[in-house]
């Protein structure tokens, strides 16, 4: 079971199948036909019906350079989700500096001083381009 999940295509197929089931149920509820003609659920339901046999085919395919998931990108995805969740409460400055420092030290294997310098430099550049030059209202600090 867990060995099967080492293949990215299997993981992708499970996720796509889950999405397809949700879309299938919702399109059934929307209806395929109304008194005035074709309903809003018609095309999505046909699409879901076509998707399942294709999913079956793709998990059976083999690639010469079959890849496996690696830890770094998966950790990065979690970090990015946490970052996005904290932004509305903390503003851009603190989470972004923390993200860049963590990114350069964990994934790019640089020392923390370089991480801090780079994050300061990039956030300053971002501020100049987006806030100063392009006049985008970006909340840099916590909003409370």
């Amino acid at each position: 079971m867990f060995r099967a999940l080492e293949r990215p295509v299997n993981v992708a197929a499970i996720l796509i199948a889950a999405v397809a089931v949700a879309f299938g149920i919702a399109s059934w509820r929307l209806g395929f036909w109304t008194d005035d003609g074709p309903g809003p659920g018609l095309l999505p339901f046909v699409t879901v019906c076509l998707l399942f046999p294709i999913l079956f085919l793709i998990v059976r395919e083999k690639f010469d350079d079959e890849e496996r998931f690696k830890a770094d990108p998966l950790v990065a995805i979690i970090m990015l989700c946490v970052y996005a969740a904290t932004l509305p409460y903390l503003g851009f400055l603190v989470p972004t500096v923390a993200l860049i420092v963590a990114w350069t030290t964990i994934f790019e294997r640089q020392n923390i001083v370089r991480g801090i310098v780079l994050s300061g430099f990039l956030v300053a550049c971002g501020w100049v381009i987006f806030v100063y030059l392009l006049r985008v209202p970006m909340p840099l600090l916590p909003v409370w």
Partner: protein
Amino acid sequence: MLNSLEQIFYGLSLAVLPQNLLYAFMGCVLGTLVGVLPGLGPITTIAVLLPLTFQASDPLGAIIMLASIYYGAMYGGSTTSILLRVPGEAASVITCIDGYEMAKQGRAGPALSIAAIGSFIAGTGSVIALSFVGPAFAKFAVSFGPPEYFALAIFGLVLSATIGGGSPARGFCMVLLGILFGLVGTDTVTGVERFAMGVPALADGIDLVPLLMGLFGLGEILYNLEQKGELSVLTSKIGRLLPNREEWKESAGAIGRGSVLGFLVGLIPGGGAIIGSLLSYSVEKKLSKTPEKFGRGAIAGVAGPESANNAAASSSFVPLLTLGLPGNAVTAVLFAGLLIQNVQPGPLMLVKNPDIFWGVIASMYVGNVMLLILNLPLVGLWVQLLRVPVWILGPAVLLVAIFGTYSLRSNWTDVSLLMIAGGAGYVLRKAALDAGPFAMAFILANIMDTSLRQALLMGDGNIAIIVSRPLSASIIGVTAVVVIYTVYSYFKAGRAKKYERPDNS
């Protein structure tokens, strides 16, 4: 003919306005700059820089900048192919073969300049042809009804799923998934909310820009985290810049053939720069008197594909601007850029927004001249960019993507969508599922749905209406042939068949 010439001059009068020249220049510099950096291709570049164009003061300036970024990235992509054997973008993969061999022999200069000159000639020729073909296409497309639009959308999606060289099953899977996600939002026919789960932000559908930036831009950054290692740049061996007489002779025919081939391929939905360059390489090898030189530094192996990919890049604007149907992933991202500026591409664009249509086409002439100037004498400067440490690039691009996404609507939900789409982009890339057909299907989903339902209403609920009109019947017929052939070859090859991994950059 005369009318087209008048319109081109009208477009030129707009393109040479100081602010538009500035946008074109900025786009060319940004595109070349990011295109030169390995791992960041035109789709990623345009997707990440898309929000910057939102800040442009007028739609024409924004679209000129986007188109210039595209060409710039195409030009820049060849530099890394030749000097690093790392294609800056997918269409330059084939350039690596002979370009890198030339660089190893100390002929990097001629390889780089023939790539730039070939791209310039092909790009300019293609834009001239586009000026005449575009209006003819638009005139023809005005007569299209819902059955024709439905048939064309199906045709484009089938080709995008099957033509890329990867597994057709995976291509179809991504097309179907793209249709489902593209249908989220308010149904345009009944006004009912579809799949929005009561979330107000989804009532107008999933926002295209964060989705594409996540799938292509962030997904690429995450994927590149796995690709560690130092790059060896052959900068010391650039040598003389211009090709010698013999090299010119070898390249001239290849540039001409590559230009024509690329232009024709770019017109086909699902075609585009990658297929143009692959076809050109095989044609040149077949026509060559010395095919054994290919793979060992044949200059025609650089000139042909580079010309073809630039010609295809220009001609892929024809289905986008005249039919409103993006033919490949790059034009799908450009489609998003046009929508941000409230410009609806399609047959009526020539009537409603002639300034944008002709201004963009004319700016391509100007952009090609700028790129030649930027890429030939300044090639040494771009090469220096390759010395920027990789550990700086990832966080820099990440930050541009995050700030850029927020700047679009000052909305936190967009940033969350960017992250989710980025994660999805990484998983899809690992699973060899190409995000290109997904992006096309996402954009075409509502066009398909609305035209299918309108067609069914026209036919009193009978689907036969689609095959009873000559044009839609012909398109459906060709589509059916492609599907049957693909299914037949797929099952004939069986499970033993190994497929190419798609390149989403």
